[in-house]
């Protein structure tokens, strides 16, 4: 039998250049409920021996029954060189199942959640806690019992009022309390009458150990704005600090959730509706039959990790770092009962990297092993035993067990009863195997089963009962397999051409007589109890494949070896050291003493006093299922120094959110365990998850980012399809010209496409260019004079074209011009006949009586005969190349056509025939272009009609550039029904183009110039709008980007009118918010009214009537002046009637007034009523006014007649600096007495004395 061996890496990838085909044998011994072994031998001279390296996987395959069959795989652990002729290599190790021993399940709990009724008062409670008003006091109503709402009967109910009975608190209903002995995840409410009030929400709280906290939840009873409007579930995540509590009188000590209906303001106090609550249940932990999948979920990713069958019986286990393989074995050893019989479930290696969970099934192999030469007994196939070894051992026997769990749980709380053949003593806490005790006597053992423990240490009945039941099952299974002495056999058989598998049963008949003594007496046929195959050995050689050895036993468990006993002991010790006993735990919170900074990483605020730390409540600090790094930090003994870190718990409050300032989150350790994730959402998956082990990032809804880049190929692999509501296009896309685009409406525009076949409901061939240049006008065009055979890329061929009519001798092409030839051909039809039983592979298209497409992964088998037609496909391909003139004969010009190389050659296959009279288009040379008119661009011609000019550089196959397009511009800008003109070099932000259309007039990166014939110009671009006069001097500038203009640095927002160089301009400086006028300001009609002046100068204002409100210059309807608000008077004022006053005639001040009605200019001082001096309209100046009568002269006055003095007044004149007082008879003088003179006047005496000498006036 020819077989081969693939050497694989751990990830399953095959290594090397091919399989090992020189192996001389392959042996595989799979085992029941355990990893098996393998070995093979191969020549050392085979170069592929270099592939043999430790921990690589060797997998044997052969053709068995016409199929490539996997005959086993193993992990290379040992390579031995067997020197000889030839030298051989012996390779061996455990089989592939050993990979399950390389992964740990961590602290995996085997359980699930299910609905639990609250009808058992020993495990749960439901209460309705109302408040009543007694006088002015609020009194809790002790009548909390609503038994009909948790009696397990959905037909009975209690009425729950939505309104509080407490006056003044009408907006909230009473609290409904739901209590259970263990933590739970959901509450299911069943109503028969619902809440009909709008604007009601459900308020949920839980007890956190010191008070009630809000419980974030999803309300499944809500309809619109009404909660409790339908039966449904209240779903939430178990709070980490959820604690037991005695919530109300007589309600008991449970894990409580309380809820009430809360009215949303404005409330309606008059509402008195109520609901009928029929039943309340909680979703809490229960044993599970899903243990295999829970465990295999931790297997290496190359293994099948899900989809395994359920176990026959429910399991409740807790692991503490066991490997996946050890956990599976423990699941088997957990046993159980079915139909009052003890059972055990099994597994074995399946196909590839998968286990096969057998459950309790142990199929018969239909085989009987028998000693050669013995008479045949019974039926079935025979297998000849070459040798046999029997081992009987009762040293493992135990007939009575006193068990405890890892955390001290006994059988006291179990609800199990003993199966047939066993005795259970609850008071004595033991189970006994009756048959074993009868045969071997009482053999007691006090055993602690380390893989059984409570999963919520502070549960008092629920989880302890489940642990007790699990302990019961575990003990029964142990007694079943160890209660009696068992027999184990090793059989060597003649290679039997059938592959027996562990878990099957086989009959064995073997008798041996020694001196008449029946030394060996094995006859399972007679006993009717076949033996269990624990480990068959399969051997493959060039001669064939078959079973060569069997390890069988009377019991379906392996014989204990020293190694297995030691391994189990180590495992138990390891678990013991990591187990918290079921003692009351203490939550450490707040500052409970101690002055050390930390204790094993816990903050000082959580540091206990010495010797007072009893235990840390794991559920409160780190839920077991969310231990982030695989180390249980609640158990300090488990944590190595480098594994410590401070526990971090965050609340929903903003002040407790985690903030990292210039720091990163490091997650060292095993990659597969490093995960950053949000809680699991209602969809069953987290909204956010970063998985280091998988190098993956999962977002539940949306990724918003402008760029996704990748150092390697970027792959999109959605479960269904990749969707887009926008076109996908290259950044240089212009319809039918450059780049590519796919729209969500199904339109695609590519520069080149290759199809094995093309199916089209309608087909529009782009033939315009073939119509004598009528649609594409390029440098030249000429029809072929003969068929043209396309040469290979880079090769040559002869091209014959007609001369231009009437231009004999004129060459139609210039040498080195690029020529485009286009091939149109339709594939010749044909057919293929598939005969009966021919297998048509998947994914092949077959034409028959129309089109038959074979779906992905489906294989059609022809029954009868199927004729497959093919052909008729239309191909349109290009052939690009340059030409060189050769000769002209009879009006036919011959050119040597040199085809372009690489992808620029076009897709016309080598040897393709381009028919005579096809058009050869001359695209000229690099830099040339063509003009095209198109009316069919895009699906339904949505991109056309248009006319465009296109140029090319380097090569037209990949170097086209759109220069102008007029007409439909959808293909350029992507806007439907946009018509206009485009001219430019692209459509990106940095491109330069002009767009004039019904969508926009746009000049991208282009200036707008308006020029006169004498030098004046206006220029507009993205920097602003500028004007120059005929002399080139600046006329104006409106600036949008900083610019140097006429020697001035202008910023965005600046405006300048005039010439800065000439010093005559207006400049608005936006950054300085300043207007500079260099020149005069002339304001003509209409005049600027005072009200037109906004933000008037400080202190200047205009008042229509009334009194000014503040000090300053004021212009009123009748006055102009300076108003002093502190004295509430004008300091200076000009009135509308011309009356003018400067200063104020008050004490300590002086004033001058002018009254045009009297013509008097008057001078006042010190508040006197009469002026000290006034100038009258008759031209007289009066000094010393002493009468209010204007006709009375002042004491001295001066007019055209002279100067007059009233009686007693004197006149002085003279020189010098002296002075004298004129009073009484004392003479005083001004100036030098020698040179000054005094005149004393006496009217009555008509005499004048000068210098003391009287002069007498003589009357006429």
């Amino acid at each position: 039998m020819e077989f081969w061996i693939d050497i694989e890496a751990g990830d399953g990838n095959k290594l090397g250049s091919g399989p090992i085909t020189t192996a001389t044998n392959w042996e595989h011994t799979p085992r029941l409920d355990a990893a098996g072994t393998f070995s093979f031998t191969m020549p050392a001279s085979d170069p592929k021996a270099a592939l043999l390296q430790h921990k690589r996987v060797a997998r044997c395959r052969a053709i068995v029954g016409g199929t490539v069959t996997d005959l086993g795989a193993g992990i290379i652990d040992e390579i031995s060189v067997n020197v000889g002729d030839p030298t051989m290599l012996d390779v061996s190790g455990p089989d592939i199942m050993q990979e399950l021993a390389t992964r740990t399940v961590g602290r995996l709990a085997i359980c699930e959640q299910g609905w639990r009724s609250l009808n058992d008062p020993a495990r749960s409670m439901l209460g309705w806690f109302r408040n009543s008003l007694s006088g002015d006091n609020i009194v809790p109503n002790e009548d909390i019992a609503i038994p009909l709402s948790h009696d397990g009967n959905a037909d009975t109910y209690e009425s729950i009022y939505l309104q509080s009975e407490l006056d003044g608190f009408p907006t909230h209903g009473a609290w409904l309390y739901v209590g259970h002995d263990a933590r739970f995840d959901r509450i299911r409410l069943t109503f028969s009458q619902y809440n009909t009030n709008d604007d009601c929400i459900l308020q949920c709280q839980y007890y956190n150990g010191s008070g009630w906290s809000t419980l974030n939840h999803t309300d499944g009873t809500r309809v619109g704005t009404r909660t409790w409007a339908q039966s449904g579930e209240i779903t939430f995540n178990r709070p980490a600090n959820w604690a037991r509590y005695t919530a109300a009188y007589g309600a008991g000590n449970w894990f409580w959730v309380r809820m009430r209906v809360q009215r949303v303001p404005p409330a309606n106090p008059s509402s008195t509706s109520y609901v009928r609550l029929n039943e309340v249940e909680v979703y809490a932990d229960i044993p599970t039959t899903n243990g295999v999948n829970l465990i295999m979920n931790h297997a290496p990713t190359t293994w099948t990790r899900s989809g395994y069958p359920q176990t026959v019986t429910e399991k409740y286990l807790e692991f503490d770092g066991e490997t996946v393989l050890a956990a599976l074995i423990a699941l088997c050893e957990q046993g159980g009962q079915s139909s009052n019989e003890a059972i055990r479930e099994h597994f074995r290696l399946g196909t590839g990297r998968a286990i096969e969970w057998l459950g309790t099934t142990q199929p018969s192999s239909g085989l009987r092993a028998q000693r050669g030469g013995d008479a045949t007994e019974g039926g079935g196939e025979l297998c000849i035993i070459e040798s046999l070894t029997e081992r009987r051992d009762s040293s493992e026997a135990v007939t009575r067990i006193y068990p405890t769990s890892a955390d001290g749980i006994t059988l006291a709380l179990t609800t199990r009863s003993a199966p047939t053949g066993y005795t259970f003593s609850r008071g004595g806490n033991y189970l006994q195997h009756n048959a074993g005790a009868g045969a071997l006597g009482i053999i007691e053992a006090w055993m602690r089963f380390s893989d059984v423990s409570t999963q919520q240490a502070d549960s008092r009945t629920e989880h302890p009962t489940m642990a007790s039941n699990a302990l019961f099952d575990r003990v029964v299974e142990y007694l079943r397999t160890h209660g009696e002495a068992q027999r184990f056999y090793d059989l060597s058989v003649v290679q039997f051409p059938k592959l027996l598998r562990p878990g099957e049963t086989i009959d064995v008949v073997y008798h041996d007589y020694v001196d008449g003594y029946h030394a060996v007496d094995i006859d399972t046929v007679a006993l009717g109890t076949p033996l269990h195959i624990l480990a068959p050995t399969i051997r493959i050689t060039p001669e064939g494949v078959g079973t060569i050895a069997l390890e069988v036993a009377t019991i379906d468990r392996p014989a204990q070896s020293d190694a297995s006993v030691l391994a189990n002991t180590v495992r138990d010790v390891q678990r013991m050291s990591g187990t918290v006993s079921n003692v009351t735990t203490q939550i450490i919170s707040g500052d409970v003493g101690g002055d050390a900074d930390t204790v094993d990483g816990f903050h000082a605020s959580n540091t206990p006093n010495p010797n007072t730390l009893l235990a840390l409540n794991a559920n409160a600090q780190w839920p077991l299922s969310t231990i982030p790094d695989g180390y249980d930090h609640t158990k300090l003994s488990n944590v190595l120094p480098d594994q410590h870190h401070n526990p971090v718990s965050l609340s929903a409050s903003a002040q407790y959110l985690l903030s990292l300032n210039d720091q990163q989150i490091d997650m060292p350790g095993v990659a597969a365990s490093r995960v950053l994730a949000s809680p699991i959402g209602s969809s069953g998956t987290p909204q956010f998850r970063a998985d280091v082990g998988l190098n993956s990032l999962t977002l539940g809804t949306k990724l918003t980012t402008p760029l996704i880049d990748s150092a390697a190929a970027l792959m999109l692999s959605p479960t269904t399809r990749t969707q887009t509501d926008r076109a996908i296009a290259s950044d240089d896309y212009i319809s039918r010209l450059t780049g590519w685009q796919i729209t969500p409406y199904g339109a695609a525009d590519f520069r080149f496409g290759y199809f094995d076949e093309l199916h089209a409901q309608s087909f529009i061939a782009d033939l315009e260019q073939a119509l004598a240049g009528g649609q594409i006008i390029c440098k030249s065009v000429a029809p072929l004079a003969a068929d043209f055979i396309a040469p290979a890329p880079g090769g040559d061929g002869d091209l014959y074209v007609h001369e231009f009519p009437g231009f004999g001798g004129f060459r139609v092409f210039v040498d080195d011009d690029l020529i485009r030839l286009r091939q149109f051909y339709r594939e010749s039809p044909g057919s293929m006949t598939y005969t009966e039983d021919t297998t048509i592979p998947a994914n092949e298209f077959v034409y028959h009586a129309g089109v038959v497409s074979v779906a992905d992964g489906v294989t059609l088998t022809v029954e009868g005969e199927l004729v497959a037609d093919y052909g008729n496909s239309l191909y349109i391909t290009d052939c690009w190349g340059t030409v060189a003139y050769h000769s002209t004969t009879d009006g036919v010009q011959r050119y040597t056509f040199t085809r372009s190389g690489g992808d620029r050659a076009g897709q016309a296959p080598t040897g393709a025939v381009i028919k005579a009279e096809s058009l050869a288009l001359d695209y000229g040379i690099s830099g040339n272009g063509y003009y095209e008119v198109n009316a069919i661009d895009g699906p339904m011609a949505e991109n056309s009609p248009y006319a465009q000019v296109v140029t090319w550089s380097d090569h037209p196959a990949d170097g086209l550039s759109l220069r102008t397009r007029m007409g439909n511009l959808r293909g350029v800008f992507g806007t439907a029904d946009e018509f206009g003109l485009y001219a430019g070099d692209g459509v990106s932000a940095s491109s330069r183009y002009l767009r004039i259309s019904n969508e926009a007039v746009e000049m991208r990166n282009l200036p707008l110039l308006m020029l006169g014939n004498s030098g004046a110009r206006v220029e507009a671009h993205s920097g602003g709008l500028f004007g120059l006069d005929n002399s080139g001097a600046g006329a104006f500038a409106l600036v949008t980007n900083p610019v140097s203009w006429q020697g001035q640095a202008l910023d965005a927002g600046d405006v300048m009118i005039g010439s800065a160089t000439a010093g005559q301009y207006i400049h608005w400086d936006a950054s300085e918010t300043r207007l500079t006028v260099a020149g005069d300001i002339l304001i003509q009609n209409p005049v600027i009214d005072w009200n037109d002046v906004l933000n008037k100068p400080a202190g200047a204002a205009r008042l229509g009537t009334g009194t000014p409100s503040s000090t300053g210059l004021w212009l009123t309807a009748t006055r102009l002046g300076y108003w002093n608000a502190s004295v509430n008077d004008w300091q200076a004022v000009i009135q509308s009637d011309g009356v003018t006053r400067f200063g104020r005639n008050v004490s300590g001040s002086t004033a001058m007034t002018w009254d045009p009605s009297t013509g008097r200019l008057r001078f006042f001082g010190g508040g006197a009523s009469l002026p000290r001096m006034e100038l009258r309209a008759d031209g007289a100046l009066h000094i010393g006014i002493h009468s209010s009568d204007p006709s009375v002269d002042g004491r001295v006055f001066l007019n055209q007649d002279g100067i007059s003095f009233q009686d007693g007044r004197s006149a002085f004149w003279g020189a010098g600096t002296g002075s004298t007082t004129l009073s009484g008879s004392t003479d005083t003088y001004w100036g030098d007495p020698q040179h000054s003179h005094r005149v004393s006047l006496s009217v009555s005496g008509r005499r004048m004395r000068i210098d003391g000498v009287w002069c007498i006036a003589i009357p006429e």
Partner: protein
Amino acid sequence: VTVEGVWVADTPAALQAKLHSLRALLGKRARLWRADDTEQQWRIARCLEVRSQKEPGSQGHAEIGLRFQLFPGPWNGAARTVNATLDASPKTLTCNNAGNVRVDNAVVTVTAAGSAITQVRVRVANVSDIRWNGNLAVGQTLTLDCGARTARIGSTDAYAGWEYLSGHVVPEWLRLQPGNNSVLIYRTGGSSASTAQITFNDGWA
């Protein structure tokens, strides 16, 4: 295979030289040729034993005996090469084994053009159906040596992407029976300019 005969040389020294060269073959693995009047055929063999015996007085000739271990496979006759451009998928290559026994050591090469080829499938209906998955870049050649059971791109191992499809029912990678054999080459990726070649020798019993 045991070969026995007499070697003759002009001189004892010449004979000795021939015997030395003959003994140098011991333990080597190489082609072992056989010939008749019309054709030469070969197969891989290892020389296990070289015996020689010279009679006293007859220094110019010696009786020799050679024993060879033959490796699996037929005797290889005329070399055949079938070329094709993979302008369709599948592309049928007709391999005419003019011998009288099957051949299982053909060499299949596929060269990518236009773009990378990601899958190559070689199929003979109802006999063999194998597929290679990977990335065969433009200009690279995938060589499937069905005799040595190796898959390489140039000199780089390329077995990682190997798989047997459900239609594969023989232990060899490719089996060419005497007469015409239709070998279908499928490609995924690449252009119609990609090429394939199958080389083999007629198989003789």
